[in-house]
């Protein structure tokens, strides 16, 4: 190609290059702004984005959101800022599969987890009690996180699973904590169980009570719920003698469950007043006179 012809092409092409570069810049800028706005919309729908739970002050009830990683302290730059603490008290970091790692920032810091000194670092699980100086905090982690279960949490979870009928509804049973204090989630026509009104049973250092169904299978006899009673509720409808535990989950001909005769004047359900003090759970005792507990899932079969 001649030099003059090439010069013509090159001089014309420079405007093409500028137009294409302008297109690149405009498209990139537009994409950047669009993704930025989309991200903002997504984060508005996820107010707890970046958080793994909260620290709840046991005395005052204040909540402090826990980030995945940060510094716990009283300083301005602390990620979990709790007034009254040292500027940098401890480092917190969530570790998948293990829990919330709490590491003191300096030696001699008075930090305890469930009554024991944390030393160089310890993993806090759900419902652990963190004591910093003279302040006590309850560690609450979101559901769905990959953390092992603590004994306290397992006991509380099983209590919820086997709780009597008048404390459970068809709606959501265990309400997650809501930071904005909007109250429990709405349920269609029954009062909602509010975990904040409920004190977890204070177990001594022992294994949690064996669930009813396991005991039934092991012993081959009916489960005796002990001294647990509920006012206004007729629970003596299950005949344990007719049940044989040979086919787990599938009762035999002999173990045909006889549903009670419907007696509308007797089976009036009166929900308890939730503003009253919460009922205290008494562990079952070996007593044949007490009515048996029923699993939530068997109630309506």
């Amino acid at each position, binding site marked *: 190609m001649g030099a003059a012809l090439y010069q013509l092409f090159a001089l014309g*092409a420079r405007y093409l290059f500028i137009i294409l570069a302008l297109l690149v810049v405009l498209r*990139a800028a537009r994409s*950047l702004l669009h993704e930025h706005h989309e991200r903002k919309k997504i984060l508005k729908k996820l107010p707890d984005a970046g958080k793994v739970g909260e620290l709840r002050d046991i005395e005052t009830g204040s909540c402090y959101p826990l980030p995945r990683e940060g510094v716990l302290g009283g300083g301005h*730059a602390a990620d979990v800022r709790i007034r009254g603490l040292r500027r940098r008290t401890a480092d917190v970091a969530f570790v998948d599969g293990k829990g919330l790692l709490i590491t003191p920032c300096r030696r001699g810091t008075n930090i305890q987890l469930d009554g024991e000194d944390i030393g160089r670092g310890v993993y806090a699980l759900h419902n652990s009690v963190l004591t910093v100086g003279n302040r006590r905090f309850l560690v609450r982690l*979101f559901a769905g996180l990959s953390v092992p279960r603590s004994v306290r949490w397992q006991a509380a*979870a099983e209590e919820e699973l086997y709780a009597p009928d008048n404390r459970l509804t068809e709606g959501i049973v265990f309400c997650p904590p809501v930071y904005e204090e909007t109250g429990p989630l709405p349920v269609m026509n029954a009062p909602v169980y509010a975990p904040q009104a409920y004190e977890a049973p204070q177990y001594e250092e022992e294994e949690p009570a064996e669930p009813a169904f396991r005991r039934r299978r092991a012993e081959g006899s009916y489960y005796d719920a002990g001294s647990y009673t509920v006012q206004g509720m007729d629970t003596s409808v299950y005949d344990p003698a007719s049940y044989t535990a040979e086919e787990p989950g599938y009762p035999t001909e002999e173990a045909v469950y006889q549903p009670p005769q419907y007696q509308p004047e007797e089976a009036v359900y009166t929900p308890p007043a939730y503003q009253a003090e919460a009922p205290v759970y008494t562990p079952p005792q070996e007593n044949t006179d007490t009515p048996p507990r029923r699993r939530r899932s068997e109630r309506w079969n």
Partner: protein
Amino acid sequence: MKQKKRRNPIDLLTGVMQVFFFAAFFLLFLKDWSVEALVMAFAVPALLYLTGAVLPRLFPMDKLLLALINFLCALGILLQFRYSASRGFTQAFNYALGLVAMIGCSLMVRHIRSWKLLTVPMMLASCGLLALPFVFRAANAGKGATAWVGFGSMTMQPSELVKILYVLILSFLLSRRRVVTSMIFIGVMLGFLVLQRDLGTAAIYAGTGLVLLYAATHSKLLTGGILAGAAGGISVMYLLFRDSYFLTVQNRINNWLDPFATYDKLGGGYQIVQSLIAIANGGWWGTGLGLGSAEMIPEFRTDFIFSALMNEFGLVFAALILCVYMLIVLRSADIALRSASAFHALLSTACAAAFALQTFIIIGGITKLIPMTGVTVPFLSYGGTSIVSCMALMGLIQGTAGLNEHLLKEDRRLADTPGEGAAL
């Protein structure tokens, strides 16, 4: 009714880039009828497609950032190819190495959970690498700064590689609020660079450290105090040693103040004058690809590649390329703001700051805005160390971006899971 499928905006962006480079290389083919230019006219757009479409599927990456990096790297290949086909292929090979470094750094950031144990070895490695140029003095003969290390015919600048370790170490220390340790580390690094008389790189390190200190502490008093102290210290050292150890620095400042006065002297303002003439010769729209005369500028392939670009493509095009650099910095800052952990946020900030400072320092130098230094133009300059270190910095940002997306998915999953404290 069939719904019209909406195309991904990044795919459209890549398409525009492909058209650009096809047209550019085809034009070079028309000039010399060289087969290499024709091969590049198809190879470079294909490479853009492969890296833009295939790579994000294999490794989690920010597509927009990747597209912009690819555009600048391909432009660097084009500019090197325009003056020498062999250097164009070498630049393409260096780009491939840079991609490997980017992927490696991205995976490193995503998968290394704890940097605590690596901090001290990285610090020792940084000091060791920066001390190497004092050992390999022969590689620095004839150069103003003692910043190079030679292995036979190959030379490299250790400070470019130490930049990666520097941002990682500083980000970790400042995420743990170890401000004093960070300042001592910055001081040691700057000490090495000042002794090497590599003041451009020292300015990048100092600026990055300052930005990180402010980002981590939010203390204007501390940052202002350090800035004032540094300015005072530099002034005192300059006044004391300008006629001896820092004579090169003195010459550069004189050349910056009046390059025409020292135009015909050795080590004078010849480079800057030629650069200014080339920029002026290009005008607003450029002389045209293949019609410029940037070969007259010394080091036009490395430090003054941007002058060559302005000569052939014009000031308007150069301004658009500067916009691309700015978009990379803005995207990096956006990724830093989205990060869930302090370490990753500071890491992305450090990489963005280092990248922005390097771009400003070199482009300011060639346009006589600030005194000229020996740093390279990111992604455009010829040289393996330069492109690999810039791609590695981008890899650290890509790793943070990938982690952000993963954590966002986790947050969505947690928001959909009712209850509390449930184990999986």
